[in-house]
C-alpha cells in the first residue's frame, strides 16, 4: 500500500507501444534524444511535436496523467525559459521594465530551448510508462551483450538491476512503515529547525539500513541455496524477440526521421 508515486511509473497495458520490443523502444528514445537537438525551425519542431502526440495517442494513456507525471520537471522547464529570457539580448526590445529589457530573441530562444527540453522529458517518460523496468533491464542486457567480450560484467550488472527493481516496492513499504512507527514515537519530520529535521532522519535511516542488510544476507543465502554461482553455464528464461510490429515501427520511424531532416 504505497501512498506515493514515482515519476513515469509503469502503467501496465496492451497498447501498440506497450507491445513493442523494449529494445526497439530504447533505440527510438536514444535516437530521438539526439535528433531533438537538430531541430532548427518551427516546422521541424512541429513535426517532432506531432510525432510525440501520435506516440501519446498510441499508448492509450490519459494525457493528463502523463503531464502530471512530469510535474517535478515543469519547474526546470519554466526555469530554462526564464533564464533565456533574461540572458539573451538579441533582436528588437519587446518590453522594457525599468531598464530591464526583454528581447524578441530571448523569447524565441527561451521557447525553443524549453520546448526541446519538454519534448525530451515527455518522450522519455513514455518509455518508462509503457515498459516495465524488467523489460528495460532485459533490453539493456541484450544491447550491451557485445561488451561482454571486453570483460564488462553485463550479466552481473543486469542481475543487480533486476534485484534492485524487485526490492524497490519492498523498501518503499519498509520506509513508510518505519517512518510511521517513529512518527508514533513523536518524530516530526515536517516542523522544527533544519538541524532538528536532519537529526530526525537518523531513527529512520538506522532501522532501514539494518533491515536492508538483513534482507541482503537472507537473499544471498537463498540464491546460494538455489544454486547461483554466476553467469557461467547459465541459461535464460527471458528472451526478447523482434516481431513484425517492431520492424514496421522501425521503418515508419526511419521515414519520420528522413522527413524531419528534409524539413530543416
Amino acid at each position: 500500500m504505497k501512498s506515493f508515486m514515482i515519476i513515469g511509473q509503469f502503467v501496465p497495458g496492451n497498447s501498440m507501444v506497450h507491445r513493442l520490443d523494449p529494445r526497439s523502444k530504447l533505440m527510438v528514445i536514444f535516437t530521438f534524444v539526439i535528433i531533438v537537438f537538430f531541430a532548427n525551425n518551427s516546422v521541424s519542431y512541429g513535426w517532432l511535436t506531432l510525432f510525440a502526440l501520435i506516440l501519446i495517442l498510441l499508448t492509450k494513456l490519459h494525457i493528463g496523467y502523463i503531464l502530471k507525471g512530469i510535474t517535478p520537471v515543469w519547474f526546470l522547464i519554466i526555469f530554462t525559459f526564464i533564464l533565456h529570457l533574461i540572458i539573451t539580448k538579441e533582436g528588437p526590445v519587446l518590453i522594457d521594465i525599468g531598464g530591464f529589457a526583454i528581447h524578441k530573441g530571448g523569447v524565441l530562444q527561451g521557447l525553443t530551448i524549453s520546448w526541446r527540453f519538454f519534448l525530451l522529458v515527455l518522450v522519455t517518460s513514455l518509455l518508462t510508462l509503457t515498459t516495465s523496468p524488467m523489460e528495460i533491464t532485459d533490453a539493456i542486457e541484450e544491447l550491451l551483450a557485445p561488451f561482454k567480450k571486453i570483460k564488462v560484467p553485463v550479466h552481473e550488472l543486469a542481475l543487480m538491476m533486476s534485484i534492485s527493481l524487485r526490492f524497490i516496492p519492498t523498501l518503499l513499504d519498509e520506509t513508510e512503515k518505519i517512518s510511521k512507527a517513529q512518527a508514533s514515537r513523536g518524530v516530526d519530520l515536517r516542523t522544527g529547525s533544519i538541524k532538528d529535521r536532519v537529526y530526525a532522519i537518523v531513527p529512520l535511516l538506522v532501522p532501514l539500513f539494518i533491515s536492508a542488510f538483513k534482507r541482503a544476507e537472507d537473499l544471498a543465502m537463498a540464491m546460494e541455496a538455489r544454486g547461483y554461482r554466476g553467469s557461467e553455464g547459465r541459461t535464460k528464461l527471458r528472451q526478447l524477440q523482434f516481431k513484425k510490429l517492431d520492424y514496421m515501427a522501425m521503418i515508419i520511424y526511419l521515414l519520420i526521421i528522413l522527413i524531419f531532416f528534409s524539413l530543416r
Partner: protein
Amino acid sequence: MMPAIEFRDVYFRYNEDAPWVLKKFNLKIKANETVAIIGHNGSGKSTIAKLANGLLVPQAGEILINDRKLTTSNVWEIRQKIGMVFQNPENQFVGTTVKDDVAFGLENRGVSRKEMIERIHTSLTEVGMEDYQNHEPHNLSGGQKQRVAIASVMATYPGILLLDEATSMLDPRGRKEILSTINDLKEELEITMVMITHDLHEITLADRVIVMNEGQIYIDTTVDQLFNDHQGLQSIGLSLPLTVELAIELEQYDYQFATYPLDNEEFLEALWTSNLKK
C-alpha cells in the same frame, strides 16, 4: 536403506566466543521420511537445515547427504539435490515475477529454455499458482510467495526438501495454504522432508518428531508419543496444544487417553471411548 541426511558428531557455533549451537550432534533421517524438528527459539533447530545444505560449515564432525560426505568441493553438486524454503517470504523471492522466480534455480542449473517453461508450469500447478505466472511479488500475499518458493524448489527436482520455519511469518490463511501444499507433495512424490517448525499442524504431517534443546536432541519420537512427556516439554519452554492440555486435565477425572490427541476429532473419539468405559 541409506539415510538421506546424516550428522555425525557435529559441532557448530557462529563464532569463537559464542556458545555451541550444536554439541556432538548426531542425526539420521531416512530417505522419503517426513521429519519435524521442533524446539524453542535458539535451540539450534534452524542451524541444522543450513548445515545440511552447506550454507554453514561445522567446526567438527561430518555431514553426509545420500551417503556422501559434504565437502567444499562437492557442495554445489550435493546442493542440487536439496531444496530449501526459508522463513521470510519476502527475502527469498529473487525474480521480478512469479515465473522468473521459479526460473531462477533452473537457469542456474543450465536447464534449456523449452524444458524450463514446462517445469515452471508443472511446479506452479502443483502449488496452485499457475494463474499467477506474471504477477509481481509485491502483489502477492505471504502465503502465495511461500508457495512460489516451494514451486521454485520443486521445479529443480530435489530429493530432499528442507522447510525452515516456512509458515511462521504467515497469517492463518497462508499457513493453511502451505500446509495443504506440503501435504500434497508428501502424498504425490517420493521425497525426504524436514520441517523445522513450532506449528503443531505441521508436526502432525510428520512421521517422526525431533525435539531440540540446548543444541542436542531432547526426544526423538513419533507424533503420537510426543506428548507423553508433557512435563518435560513444558520445562524446556514448549507449550501444549489445547486438546493435549484438556486431555491431561481430564485424566484427573478418570478419563483415559491411549495417546494424547492432537486434533479435535482424535480428542472426541478418545473421550467417547473413555466415557463408555467408565
